[in-house]
């Protein structure tokens, strides 16, 4: 090959290479500067793969809350309620009057009513900000798995279109789409059994949840949720919080099969007495 041709080829290849790199760095949103803080998959989508966890005490209460003693006297500072700032826009959940009264009643009867106490499936969005990690597994195909450590809960986010859910379920039906670098998940078909937190904030089966996961750096996702439920609220309302990538060495989801931890609570009175039981001491409970 003549030298001039070789030189030309090298130049062409390097131009093509540069263009390819520029193309790879370009954010899918036209006209936006490439965001080097966003990890990307081979097809250019933000790469959300990893184990994530919310930090903070939203699972205790979505709204502003002061620290307070826990429900069991003997536990002292263990299981006391940590303080936290509101993750709800405007620090207000716009309940209809009857629903505001029900939330107050739920709060007062927290231990007997909170589905978390019974190890029930958490629903969405509560699953996201419970004090357990969850894993996002983004595939090369049409589905994204979100697996939660709590109660072996999981959901598969189907990208694109889907038929309406045939029945209501605890975890609902999740349908996703990309808006620029944001994974938008439309959650419908939720039942009326799940709560938003340990403070009795609740919804009906008419609830419609829209989640938005936006990477802001390789270690942080911005998590925004819009909640709409015409049976319970007077208007849609919004949650926003960061989700952090767990970077602990060898981090993995572990078993938190809590059914075993609640069987005594749920069925204890029905067990055949053998006389060999290790008795429980009487704990002093007080709530609220």
């Amino acid at each position, binding site marked *: 090959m003549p030298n001039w041709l070789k030189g030309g080829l090298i130049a062409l290849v390097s131009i093509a290479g540069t263009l390819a790199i520029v193309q790879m760095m370009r954010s899918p949103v036209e006209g936006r500067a490439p965001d080097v803080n966003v990890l990307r998959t081979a097809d250019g989508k933000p790469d959300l*793969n990893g184990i994530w966890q919310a930090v903070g005490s939203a699972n205790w209460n979505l709204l502003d809350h002061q620290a307070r003693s826990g429900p069991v006297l003997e536990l002292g500072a263990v299981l006391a309620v940590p303080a936290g700032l509101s993750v709800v826009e405007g620090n207000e959940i716009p309940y209809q009057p009857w629903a505001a009264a029900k939330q107050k009643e739920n709060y007062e009867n927290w231990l007997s009513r909170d589905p978390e106490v019974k190890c029930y*499936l958490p629903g969405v969005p509560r699953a996201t900000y419970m004090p357990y990690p969850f894993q996002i597994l*983004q595939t090369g195909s049409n589905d994204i*798995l979100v697996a939660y450590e709590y*109660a*072996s809960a999981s959901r598969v986010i189907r990208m694109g279109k889907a038929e309406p859910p045939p029945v209501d379920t605890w975890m609902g039906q999740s349908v996703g789409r990309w808006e620029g670098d944001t994974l938008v998940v439309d959650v419908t078909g939720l039942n009326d059994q799940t709560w938003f937190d340990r403070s009795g904030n609740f919804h009906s089966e008419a609830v419609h949840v829209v989640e938005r996961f936006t990477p802001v750096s390789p270690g942080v996702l911005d998590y925004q949720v819009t909640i709409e439920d015409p049976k319970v609220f007077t208007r849609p309302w919004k949650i926003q919080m960061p989700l952090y990538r767990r970077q602990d060495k060898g981090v993995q989801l572990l078993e938190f*099969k809590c059914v075993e931890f609640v069987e005594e609570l749920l*069925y204890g009175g*029905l067990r055949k007495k053998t006389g060999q039981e290790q008795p429980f001491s009487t704990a002093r409970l007080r709530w609220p």
Partner: protein
Amino acid sequence: MLLALAAGIAASALAVLVAQQPSAPATAAGAAANWTPTRTPDGQPDIQGTWTNYTSTPFEVPDKSDTPDVYAGDLDGTGRGTGPSSFLTDTSGRQLTKARSLVVDPPSGRVPIMPWAEERRNYKLAHIQDDWVNFTPWERCITRGVPGGIFPAGYGSGYQILQGPGYVAIVYEMIHEARIIPVDGRPHLGASFRLWNGDSRGRWDGNTLVVDITRYNDKGSVATNVATQRVRSIPQSEALHVVERFTRVDENTINYDVAIEDPKVFTAPWKVAMPLHREPDYQLFEYACHEGNRAVPNTLSGGRARDRAARAAGSR
């Protein structure tokens, strides 16, 4: 109901017929020898999709010594067992495996269970009205276990396999298990971990996903449902060690082979082989098992009612 019964009887008859045939490997007949799976973006053989495991092949080769009533927990002959009867479950004729049993090793098709473990099983099944720990972990809605979760349950038989960089995930429809298997070469968890489902570590051996599972607790069972007959509710020990092999042999078939050893429970290692069938139109439904568990409290409450009746009869 009648139709289902008739179909069930037909399937059972067919199973008996098949049982007369010489043992054949449970691999899909006619699988193209040189079929190669496509690759995921991170280079794994692609085994993704929705799979089911319907089969009418019995778990073990039937034997005259079998006592199906005992395995179903029906010791008093009242016909009350737990779980679906094996001949009434949701099966599909076109997916019959051509084998005498799903147990392929030892060649007898019989699991080499130690006598103490059978006694333990009989005790537990006969005393489910006393204490929830006597139920299998499936009925308690904890787990169907590993590998038990892949043995045919009769219903809720969907499995979705997803693959991302460094991982293979299997979403089990039954009790909504999302099992995440790292395939990045990391070591097992520390030995102090004792888990219901053990700790899974995978690697690719050519086109075969090989999963090594250890760190089990001694509270579970390798098999939990009536379809597994004699092996149901046989305890597992902390020494349980399982190796699963998933090989996609054609577009629509994964051959699933599993080797089970537990020197405290079985006198020898044994193996199960069965196919998983691709069913793209199958939709996994949420199985909120614990949330709707009436079986455990109702069974216990029935036991306490019996106790009261016995006391009343005694004091008369």
